[in-house]
C-alpha cells in the first residue's frame, strides 16, 4: 500500500477515535452534572476538560462554555466537530482505499454534525451533536469491520484507533485519579461510562465501586475493549500483521517498542502502580509516542537510500 495512504488511514482512524472518545466523555459528564454534586459541578467539568484537552485545561476555563468548545468550537483542536472533519478529510484523501459504505457513512456524519450552527450557550444542541457521534461511531466501527478486507489497510486503521484509545484512556485515568481530588460514587460511574465500561465493570466486579478496582479494570483487563491492556494488545496484533506482510522491512525497532509497552501492561499488578499512577500513565503515553514515531519512520517517511538498501 502507498505510504501516504497508510498515513491517511491511520489518521482518519485516530481522529475518529478521538471524536468517539470525546462524545463518550461528554455524554457521561453531562449526565452527571444534572445531578447535584457532593463537591462541585466545576470539578466535574474540569475533569472532562482534562480528559479531552490535555494541557489545554486550567482552572480558568470558562465552564459555562466548555460544552460548546469541546463539541463545536471551530478553533479548538480537540472539538468533536473538528475531529470528525479531520477524520473525513483524511478519508477523502483515500476514498479509493476504504469501502463506499464507510465513506458514505462518514460523509453523512460529517454533514450532519457540521449542519448545526450552535450558539455557545445551547447545551441541548451540543448534546444532539454528541448523540449523533455516539450513534455514528458504533455504526462506523461495524461498517469498517464488515465491508473492508482485513488486510494491511485495515490493520493501519486498527493501529490508529488503538494507539489513540490507549493514550486517551491514560489521559482520562490521570484526570480522575491524579488531577481531580474529590470523587464520589457518581463520579466513578462517570468515569466508567466515559469508557463505555459501566455494565462490563459491574459484570466482572459487581457494582461495588472501588477506585483501585476500577483502575485495574480500565488499565489491565485484557478482555475489555476500552482498557489500556486491550488497546496495546490490539496495537501489537496490527503491527505484527503489518510486519508479516512487509517481509523486507527492518521491523526490529518497532517490535522492540511494542514488546516493551506490552510487558508494561501485561506483567504488572495494580497494587504495584497505584501509588505512582501518574508516572506510570505518563510512561505509557510516552511509549505510544515513540512507537508512533518509529512506525512513521519505518512505513511512511523512510529515506530513499534505505529503501534501495533493502
Amino acid at each position, binding site marked *: *500500500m*502507498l*505510504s*501516504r*495512504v*497508510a498515513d491517511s488511514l491511520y489518521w482518519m482512524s485516530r481522529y475518529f477515535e478521538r471524536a468517539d472518545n470525546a462524545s463518550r466523555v461528554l455524554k457521561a459528564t453531562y449526565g452527571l452534572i444534572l445531578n447535584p454534586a457532593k463537591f462541585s459541578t466545576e470539578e466535574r467539568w474540569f475533569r472532562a476538560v482534562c480528559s479531552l484537552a490535555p494541557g489545554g485545561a486550567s482552572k480558568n476555563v470558562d465552564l459555562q462554555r466548555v460544552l460548546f468548545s469541546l463539541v463545536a468550537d471551530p478553533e479548538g483542536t480537540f472539538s468533536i466537530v473538528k475531529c470528525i472533519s479531520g477524520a473525513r478529510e483524511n478519508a*477523502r*484523501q*483515500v*476514498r*479509493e*482505499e476504504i469501502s*463506499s459504505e464507510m*465513506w*458514505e457513512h462518514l*460523509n*453523512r456524519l460529517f*454533514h450532519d454534525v*457540521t449542519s448545526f450552527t450552535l450558539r455557545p450557550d445551547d447545551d441541548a444542541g451540543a448534546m444532539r451533536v454528541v448523540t449523533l457521534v455516539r450513534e455514528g461511531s458504533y455504526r462506523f466501527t461495524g461498517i469498517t469491520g464488515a465491508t473492508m478486507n482485513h488486510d*494491511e489497510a485495515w490493520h*493501519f486503521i486498527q493501529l490508529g484507533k488503538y494507539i489513540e484509545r490507549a493514550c486517551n484512556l491514560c489521559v482520562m485515568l490521570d484526570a480522575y485519579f491524579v488531577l481531580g481530588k474529590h470523587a464520589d460514587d457518581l463520579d466513578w460511574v462517570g468515569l466508567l461510562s466515559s469508557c463505555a465500561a459501566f455494565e462490563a465493570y459491574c459484570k466482572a466486579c459487581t457494582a461495588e465501586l472501588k477506585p483501585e478496582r476500577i483502575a485495574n479494570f480500565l488499565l489491565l483487563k485484557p478482555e475489555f475493549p476500552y482498557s489500556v491492556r486491550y488497546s496495546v494488545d490490539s496495537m501489537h496484533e496490527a503491527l505484527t500483521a*503489518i510486519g508479516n*506482510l*512487509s517481509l*523486507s*522491512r527492518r521491523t526490529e525497532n518497532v517490535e522492540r517498542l511494542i514488546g516493551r509497552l506490552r510487558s508494561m501492561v501485561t506483567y504488572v499488578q495494580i497494587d504495584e502502580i497505584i501509588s505512582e499512577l501518574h508516572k506510570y500513565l505518563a510512561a505509557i503515553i510516552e511509549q505510544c509516542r515513540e512507537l508512533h514515531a518509529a512506525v512513521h519512520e519505518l*512505513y*511512511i517517511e*523512510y529515506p*530513499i537510500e534505505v*529503501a*534501495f538498501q*533493502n
Partner: protein
Amino acid sequence: MITETDPSDRSGAKALQRYDFDGAYDEMFSALDHPRKQYRPLHNLLLNLGPDELLRSKHEADQSFFNQGITFTVYGNDKGTERIFPHDLLPRIITATEWERIERGLTQRITALNLFLKDVYHEAKIIEDGVVPGSIVYTCKHYRREMRGVKVPRDVYITVVGTDLIRNPDGNFVVLEDNLRVPSGVSYMLTSRRVMKQIFPGLFQKCRVRPIEQYSQVLLSTLRSFAPEGRSEPTVVLLTPGSYNSAYFEHTYLAREMGIELVEGRDLVVHDNIVYMRTTFGLQRVDVIYRRIDDDYLDPLVFENGSTLGSPGLFNAYRAGNVAFANALGTGVADDKAIYAFVPKIIRYYLDQDPILEGVQTFLMSDPGQRDHVCQRLEEYVVKAVGESGGYGMLIGPHSTEKERSEFREKIYAQPRNYIAQPTINLSTAPCFVDGMIEPRHVDLRPYILYGDKITIVPGGLTRVALRKGSLVVNSSQGGGSKDTWVLQN
C-alpha cells in the same frame, strides 16, 4: 362508474404544459404531442407521474449523489461548501441505429487522429504532403517538441478520449470537439446510471438499455495493454493532482473501480529511469500511469514552471520505455480547434475514407479571407480560443453585445492563430425537469472511447445539459449539468 379520462387531465400532462420548441431538433418530440418511438415509455410515465412524484424522485436522486460525496467544492468560504454536480432526472435516449453510426464514426475519427499524432511526432508526412500546414501544427499551444521521435507503446497516443457530439437541426450527430488530453466526466456517466436504476427501475427494464458498467474493466485492460515488455503483471496507477482538484471524485472512483493505486506526484520516485511508488513495503515499480495531470505539470525537469504535482524524472523514464503514460504527451496538438478544421482531410489522408461523422464548418482566423468574412458578421458566429476548453474564451455571437463583439474583434486581429469561428448551431433539446415543470433544454453528448489493442466505446456517454433556458453552453463550469444517456438494444 368508470370514466375514460382525457389524457390532458392526467396529472403529469400539466408538467408538460410549458414544453415549447425553438427550432432545434427535439430528442423526445417529433412534433407537439408526438413523442418519438424510443421516448414513448418515458412520455407515458411522465403523463402519469405528478410533479410531486417527480420532485420526490429528484430529491431522492440528489440525496444519493450527496451522500456518495459526488460533489464539487465551491470555494470562497471557510467551510468549503459542497454542492452536488447538477444533474437532470430524465434520461436521454439514443436508438440502436443512431448509436451504430456514432460508434463507426468515432472509431474512424479516433483511428485517424491517432495516426496523425504518430505522423506529426515522427516523419510529419502529412505536412510534407501539404494536407495540414506546418504553420498551424507547430504553433499549437499543446504541441510538445519533446515528443519528437519518442516511440510510444503500441503507437497509441490517445488511450482515453471524450468526443463531444451535438445533434444539428436535421437530427444528424456531428462532432463539435475532440478531447484528447485528459477528458473527464466518465464517473458522472457511471454514477448517474446507478442512481437512475434506483429511481426508474421499471422504465429502465422496459426500455432495454445497453449496460455501461463494464467501463472500468475495459479501461483497466486497455491500460494494462501498454505495459513495457517483460512486465507480465504490470502495476497500473492513476496519477491525480490531489484532493483539491475538481475531478478528484472521479479519480478516486476510477481507481477504486479498477482496484489500482491512486497516486500523487509525491508518492513517486524515479531512480535510474525506473518509476517507483513509495509503499509501506518499500519501493514498488510502476509500469503504466493513467495520468490525470496535464502535460505541463508531469515533470518539472522537462516542463519548467516549478510544479509539484508531478515527479522529477518521469519524462526520461517514459522516453526510455520503462513506463507508459495514458494518454501520451503532446496529444493536445490533435484537439486544437484549428486542427479540427482539418480532421476531414486527415481522415481521407490516412484512411482513404469519407468521414462518417461530419464536423462543424470552421473558419480559421489565421486566414485573412476567412477572418474578414467572420469579423464583419460576428453576431452570426461562435468564436473560440483554440487551446481552451471548458467553455472559456468563447464568444457566442447571437447572445453577445456590441461591446463584447468589438472586444473579440480586437483580440482576433491581435492573435489570429489563437481563434476560430463556427456558425452558431442550435443544439438539440431534450426534456428536463426544471422547477417542477418539464421543459426542453439544449444538450450535447460525450461518449468515451478507449483505445488499447482495439477501440472500444461503451454504449452511452455523458449528456451535458445547458440548464439555463435558451443557453447553448453545456460546460459544467458555465452552469451546465448532466443526464443519464440510454443507448437502446436492437
